[in-house]
């Protein structure tokens, strides 16, 4: 039954991504963006046995500390959207916590900086 005449095409993956995501839809872009930080919840002991192997490995990955969604996707071989769906479902189950990305520091006012510079020049320069 196998390719007895030697011709065997490159085999596609056995488990397709839509089965791994259980057919769920993509999560909200705001809820889980590329740079959202994700970590496992503190109560690791009560991890349910019914998580799929992919969800388990994502949890393992996230248990080391905060990781961005983009980084997690880089560690797995799944498309980014699939990882986002899985992370969203893990969040729903309470296994993951997210932290919004750190806001960019606000630049100080240019005038103040100039005044400080002038002051320093006046004192030392």
């Amino acid at each position, binding site marked *: *039954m*196998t*390719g007895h005449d030697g011709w*065997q*095409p*490159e*085999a*596609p*993956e*056995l*488990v*397709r*991504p*839509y*089965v*791994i*995501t*259980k*057919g769920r*839809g*993509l999560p909200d872009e705001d809820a889980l963006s*590329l*740079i959202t*930080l994700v970590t496992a919840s503190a109560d690791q002991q009560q991890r349910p*046995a*019914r998580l*799929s*192997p992919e969800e*388990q*490995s994502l949890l*393992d*990955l996230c*248990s*080391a*500390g*905060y*990781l*961005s969604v*983009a*980084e997690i*996707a*880089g*560690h*797995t*071989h*799944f*498309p*980014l*959207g*699939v990882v986002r769906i899985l992370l969203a479902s893990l969040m729903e189950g309470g296994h993951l916590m997210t932290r919004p*990305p*750190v806001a960019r520091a606000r630049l100080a006012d240019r005038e103040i900086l100039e005044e400080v510079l002038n002051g320093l020049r006046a004192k030392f320069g």
Partner: protein
Amino acid sequence: MTEYTGNPLLWVALVALVAAAVLISRQRKAARALRQQVQGLRDHYTELENDYGKSVQAAQERAEDETKTVLKSAMRTLQGLAAEQQLVLSRLQTKYGDSALLQDLLEIDHTNSQFGRRAQSIAVLCDGWLGGRRDTASVYDVVRSAQGRIRHFRRVDILSQVDFGITSRAVEPVALALAELLDNATSYSSPDTVVEINIRTVPKGICVVVDDAGVGMSDEERARADKLLATERASGVAGLGNPPQFGFAVIGLLCERFGFEVSVDSSSPYGGVRAVVLLPHELLTAMPEKKAPAPASAPAARGTARPVPEGGPEAALTSSPTGDGLPRRRRKRPMAIVPGSASTPRATGRSDSEQAQVMGAFQRGTQSGRVTEPDSPDHAGRTSETPGASSEGHEVS
């Protein structure tokens, strides 16, 4: 006496007697010949009849063989195309993983898988090619693969897992047989019910139990299923009915060829059918190793990379692979990460571990500075024992 011989009547009677005897014997001969002829004709007739039956059967077989050959090669083309398309879809899914397009790509992937399964089923009935796998796969993955090949895969719920793999040779047949069972289970039960799958270890191997909450099978259907699964294998696509019912015919053939068993003779506790697939030890192997290295490296890093609750900040700095609280990255291939986002987690990691060290050093520096200030303010920072304090000393002076 002489007057008797002279009597012509006697002679006439004698001649008549002889003539009658000759006539009778001739008639008898003719009758015998006719009987033989009839017998010969009858033999000839039965011979012809047999020949006719044989030639009709031969013609039927030849026609069926021809159908099989045509279907087989046609299905092989379709299977190849489906597999090719699946690869293209995988590439597209990776390429457009970030966009909303992914949702549609997953839908297409699902349709494509169903299409591939249909082609595979017909190929099996025509003694065709099933598509091979080079790797063993875990029982759980094979079940999920089967789940992905049916329309209502969302209604299938896998309740248990076992630590066994399936040999590469049996991966596709078992997946296909299970897909046919799941297709039956989801088609013959109401859309809001769940089809449950339990995987159990039994002395003879592993059982995959599929329970649906449908209406069950009638006696006639059950008899047909039993016949196709156990005694009389289907051959070709003839006799599948209209609309054709592929399921049990395909499963029966796969069972025979690959040596596993399927039975549907019990009823499920939910009222529907309970189908049991028994995979013997010959088809089972140890759990295959995971391909992705990332999950394996993560637990190793876990113990060292969570510095704050376990050790002091110094311990974290000496043992943490990257020094910022993140697991060591093993890049197998270039990762597509937006440049700005990669630096963000690093900064937050520093806030956990390095920040503590910097603050500690700052505190020690100011303390030592206060203690030694009366003697020599300039020396205060430099003689301090902590390396972090020396830099603080500069800022103080």
